[in-house]
């Protein structure tokens, strides 16, 4: 029994997702260990993003259960919750493959929006805040402090008042992660965080993820295409192909699994040996 099975933050059980006649995910089960960085990998079209969309409530799974166990002990069945409730109550946050920032708002504003729910409570659902009652002002200052904290972490504090759309690709990626962190998640789902990043930006991303895991008691699950990123930072790798799990284990285990090699080379399993020989790996 591996470490992620002992104390999982999220248990995915028999997850199946069909669109019309097409089965995008078929009977998928795996666990995400608490405090781990888990990578979900697989060739394009393997169904990784669909898994994310099920976890974060954007799709309702056809079958299966998603059990989120908060550190306080409460359990949430994600497949039954509305998408915004999953972030608000179950404390699962996500980023998107094609970055979804609020481009016309400033970087600071992006981080403030992420703290919407606590601020709404502090402003007595706007009424108190509108009348200028004290509690809101204090919370607002605290929210700005939180935002500043994250801006310093992602090194954007000097550009806090610039529109998010003006940032470079790599900065946008990190801002999106910081924004997700501002919701105070216990599980952070990152959809291809390293796509399109140059080596320097990739490195910064790795540092940020390590920091989040270490300092914030947040488990991370990420989708990645590029294997090198995954091998470096993840504790646990789950490999999908055609919507089914073909491998699950430590990075070392996964990268020597012939199924994985075959899937990545785009060849049949029995071809692997021959191909390896041919290209000398």
């Amino acid at each position: 029994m591996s470490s992620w099975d002992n104390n999982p933050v999220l248990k995915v059980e028999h997850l199946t997702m069909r669109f019309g006649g097409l089965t995008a995910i078929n009977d998928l089960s795996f666990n995400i260990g608490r405090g781990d960085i888990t990578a979900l990998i697989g060739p394009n079209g393997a169904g990784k993003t669909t898994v994310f969309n099920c976890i974060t409530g954007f799709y309702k799974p056809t079958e299966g259960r998603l059990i989120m166990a908060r550190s306080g002990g409460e359990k949430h069945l994600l497949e039954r919750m509305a998408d915004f409730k999953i972030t608000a109550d179950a404390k699962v946050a996500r980023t998107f493959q094609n970055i979804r920032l609020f481009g016309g708002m400033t970087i600071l504003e992006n981080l403030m929006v992420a703290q919407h729910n606590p601020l709404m409570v502090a402003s007595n659902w706007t009424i108190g805040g509108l009348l200028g009652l004290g509690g809101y002002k204090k919370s607002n200052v605290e929210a700005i402090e939180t935002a500043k904290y994250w801006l310093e972490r992602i090194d954007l504090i000097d550009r806090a008042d610039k529109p998010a759309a003006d940032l470079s690709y790599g900065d946008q990626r990190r801002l999106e992660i910081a924004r997700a962190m501002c919701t105070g998640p216990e599980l952070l789902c990152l959809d291809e965080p390293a796509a399109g990043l140059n080596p320097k930006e990739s490195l910064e991303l790795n540092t940020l993820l390590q920091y989040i895991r270490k300092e914030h008691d947040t488990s991370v699950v990420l989708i990645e295409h590029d294997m090198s990123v995954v091998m470096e930072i993840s504790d646990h790798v789950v490999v999908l192909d055609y919507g089914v799990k073909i491998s699950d284990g430590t990075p070392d285990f996964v990268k020597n699994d012939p199924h994985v090699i075959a899937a990545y080379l785009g060849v049949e399993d029995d071809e692997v040996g021959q191909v390896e020989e041919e290209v000398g790996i």
Partner: protein
Amino acid sequence: MTTGQPLLSVRGIKTFYGKIQALHGVDLDVYEGEIVTLIGANGAGKSTLMMTVCGTPQARNGSVSYCGEDITYKPTYEIMRTGIAQSPEGRRIFPRMTVLENLMMGGMVAGNEHFEEDLRRAFELFPRLKERQQQRGGTLSGGEQQMLAIARALMSRPRLLLLDEPSLGLAPIIVAQIFDAIRELNRSDGLTVFLVEQNAYHALKLAHRGYVMVNGTITMTGTGKELLSREEVKAAYLEGGAH
């Protein structure tokens, strides 16, 4: 083979999506009769390059020339009437048209006189399509859609065929079929093919020459065999399991 004037010549193009720069000055040549492949990771800018050749989006700097003529700022539909055809990323089959209608759309540029003949050849190349001619594009399987996308591009009788990730999301056996078809087209008809791939192994085996793209720039070039044996290429793209 790589002598004389290239059929397609890309010089220093820079392409932007809004403020984000996707290509940082790319140079690339494709000669008549070649299969050239461009490999690189997701988001490296491969598809952007291919779309820039077709004028959508247009390059902000640099030039694209085809048969010696500058086509950088021509409208897309005019470029596509000069003998370039593309099977784009994600296949982009018209989902609510039948297979036959999709092929007719492809054949529109070529006019009517060769239609029957071209159709017959497309069906010879991909017999599956013949069985499904009256089926709607959206109901085809991924592999069939890919075949249809290639067949549709061929219906315009191109001199230069641009293929964007034909292997995407397909089972290995189908990928092999499609690559065989590409090889066959090149060998028997002398069709020039420019192929964008993530599936580096098969692509490099198929191609005469290859380019490697990282973050919007070309970092390596050489024959398919050369690139296949380069350590950097291996490290970047074949890292599936073993070192």
